[in-house]
C-alpha cells in the first residue's frame, strides 16, 4: 500500500492542456444538432464506442484519450457500456458487412438526441481496405454522421479535439 501511495505521489499530475485542433483533421458533416441541444451536452457527454471493422489501431488511440495525459473525463466526456446511456456514438473502421447490422442496432438503441462521430480514414471511405464485397462505403452510408476525424489512426489529441468540435466546444473546454 505504501508503495502505491508513493508511486501516486511520484507520478503527480501528467495531464496536459489540449492543443488546438490542426486543420484538415476533422470534417463536420450532415446532421447537426440545434445549438440549444448542444448546450445541454456541455459538462457531460456520454459515448458509446463501436468498432465496425477497424484494424484496431484506432481503438488504441481512442483508449489513449482516456489515459492521464489526455484525460477526457476532465471535459465531462466518458465512455459507457450501454447505448441506452449514450449521447454520442463513436465509430471506427470501414463498416464490415458482418458489422453493419450491429452498428445500425446500436445506433437505434440510443435515445435521441444523438450524435455520431466517425474516427479514422477508413471510417470515411474504407481507406486502405477499399470498398468491397466485405465492406460498406462509409459509416455515413449506415448511420448519419456529424463529424469525421481523419488520420490513420488519428492521434489522441485529434480524436479528443474532434469530439469536442462535434459538440461545439473548443480545446479549452468552452
Amino acid at each position: 500500500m505504501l508503495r502505491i501511495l508513493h508511486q501516486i505521489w511520484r507520478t503527480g499530475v501528467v495531464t496536459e492542456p489540449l492543443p488546438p485542433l490542426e486543420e484538415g483533421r476533422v470534417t463536420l458533416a450532415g446532421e447537426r444538432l440545434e445549438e440549444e441541444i448542444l448546450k445541454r451536452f456541455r459538462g457531460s457527454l456520454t459515448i458509446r464506442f463501436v468498432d465496425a471493422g477497424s484494424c484496431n489501431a484506432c481503438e488504441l488511440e481512442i483508449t489513449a484519450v482516456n489515459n492521464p495525459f489526455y484525460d477526457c473525463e476532465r471535459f465531462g466526456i466518458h465512455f459507457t457500456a450501454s447505448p441506452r446511456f449514450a449521447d454520442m456514438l463513436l465509430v471506427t473502421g470501414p463498416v464490415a458487412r458482418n458489422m453493419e447490422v450491429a452498428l445500425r442496432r446500436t445506433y437505434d438503441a440510443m435515445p435521441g438526441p444523438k450524435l455520431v462521430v466517425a474516427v479514422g480514414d477508413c471510417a470515411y471511405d474504407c481507406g486502405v481496405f477499399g470498398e468491397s464485397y466485405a465492406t460498406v462505403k462509409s459509416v455515413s452510408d449506415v448511420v448519419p454522421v456529424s463529424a469525421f476525424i481523419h488520420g490513420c489512426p488519428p492521434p489522441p489529441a485529434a480524436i479528443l479535439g474532434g469530439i469536442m468540435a462535434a459538440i461545439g466546444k473548443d480545446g479549452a473546454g468552452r
Partner: protein
Amino acid sequence: MKDQSILKDALVAAFGDAAASVRVEGARPSIAAMFCVPVARFAEAGKVMKACDARLAAEWAVDETVFGGGFGIMALYGKGVELLLIECAVPHEAPVFPSLTGNYLAAWRFERQMRSLMGVESAGHPDARPWIKHEDWPPEAYPLRKAFDAKTRLARVQGEYKWVRAEGEGVYEIAVGPVHAGIIEPGHFRFQAVGEDIINLEERLGYVHKGIEKRFESMTWAAASRLAGRVSGDTTVAHATGYCTALEAAAGCEVPARAAWLRALLLERERIANHVGDIGAISNDAAFTFLLYQTAILRERLLRTNQAIFGHRLTMDIVMPGGVNADITLEAARVISGELTEFSAEFERLVAIYEETPSLEDRTCNAGVLAPPLAKEMGVVGIVARASNQPLDARVQQAYPPYDVIAPKLIRCGDGDVNARIQVRIDEVRESIRLIRAIIDGMPEGPLAVDCPAPRPGATGISVVEGWRGEIVWWVQAGPGSEINRVMVRDPSSVNWLALEQAIKGNIVPDFPLCNKSFNQSYSGNDL
C-alpha cells in the same frame, strides 16, 4: 544439421517418390522445405507429421486458375527450428481433400475458413458450419476464388447459425457481443453456465472481416505493405515485416543489414508498448485500476518518442519492401537509451506493486488455466504458448537477423494461468529492453533500403516473424505477370482464439473478461 530435417526425413521415409520435393523459390528462414503429395494422401502426410510431434502452423488454399491449375491446398508444419510445407493439388471440378482435423485441432477453423472463402471441401471435417462468412451470405459466394470480383455486392440471405448447446438441469446461456462494453473489437461469445461456472464457451468471430487477403490481389507489391501494416494495427511493425520478408524472399532481395536491425528495433519497441499496456489492462479487469493508469503513462511516453523519432506514434509504414524508410541518428539512439533507463526503473516499481498486491494475485493465479499438454495439442503460439511452457519463439528458433547476433532469451512459465501470461509479459519486457540496448550498440552502418524487384512469375515466398503476440506467418505468390496472385497471412490469433475456449472452462463467468484480456487476441488479425 540433423534437427533441421526430422520432418523432411520422416516424410521422405514414409512417402518415398510419392512426395515430390518442390523447389522453394524463397523462404526466410531458408530452412523451410516444400513437398507435393497426392491429394488422397494429404491427411496421411499430416499423420506422419503428427507422429514426429510437429504442430500445424497454418493451412490455406490457393486458386491456381491463372496457372491453368485447380486449387493448391497447403499445410505448414513446424517442429523446433524446422518448417515443412506440404501441398496437394485438387481440380476445380472436384475441390475436395482429406481433412487434417483427425490429427490437428488447429485444422478445425483453418478448414472451415478455406471452405467458406475459397470453396474447397475438407472431407471428414466434423463441423460443416461456415467460419468468417456469416449465415446471411449467399453460401456459394467464394471471395478468394479468382473468378470472384472483389467489388461484388452480395445479397443478404436467410440463414441460421447452429450453436453448440449444452443441456441439463440449471444450464443457462449467456450471449455476449458482437458489440462489447469497452473500447475493444467485436466478436460474439456464447457461454453455457451452471450457476457461476462456465461449462462451455463458443466463440463466433468474423465480424471485422474486411476482405484483406482479397484486397492484396488488386494492389502492387510496393503499395501492399501499407495494407500489411493494418492486418492488426497493434502489430503493425511485425505484420509489415512479415509481409516484406516473404516478398523479399520471393523476389530474391537481400535487405541491407542496417534495415534488418532497425526493423528489430521497432519490433521490440512494439512488443514493450503492447506488453506494458496489457499488464495494466489485465490488472484493470481484476479491478486494480491503479496499474492501468500507471502503465498507460509508460505506454504513452513510448509512443510519443516514436512520434518524435519516427514520425508516427505506432511506427506504421516505416517497414517497406527492401528495407525501411526511417533511420535513427546518434542523438535519437541516445534518446532511446535514456528513455529505456527511466522506463525500466519505473516499470520495476510497478512490477513490485503487482507482486505484492495479494488481492490482485488472488484473481490472476489459477484463473484461465491452459494446461501445457493442451497448449501443445492445440498448437498455440506466442505468449499464450510460452505461459503454458511451450518453447516457441521464432526469434530464437529461426534466429533471423539481427536475432542471430543479439540472441533473445526464451521466456517460459509453466502455470498456464492469467498470472503466467502476465509474468511472461513482464520478463519479455525486461528482455526486450536488453535487446534494444544490444541493437543500438551493435547497429551496423549502411543503406536503409534496396530496390525490391517484383518476384518472377509463379515465385512464392514464406516468412515467419515473432510479433508481440507470437508467431506470424506470411506466404506470397506471384501470378504469371509477376503481379500479386495470392497473399496468405496467419496471425497468432487464428490459432490462439480456439485455446481460449478451452482455458475458460470451469472458470466463473465474472472472470471471463480477465481471462480474455490475458490472451488479448486480435479480432482483426483473425477475421482479416
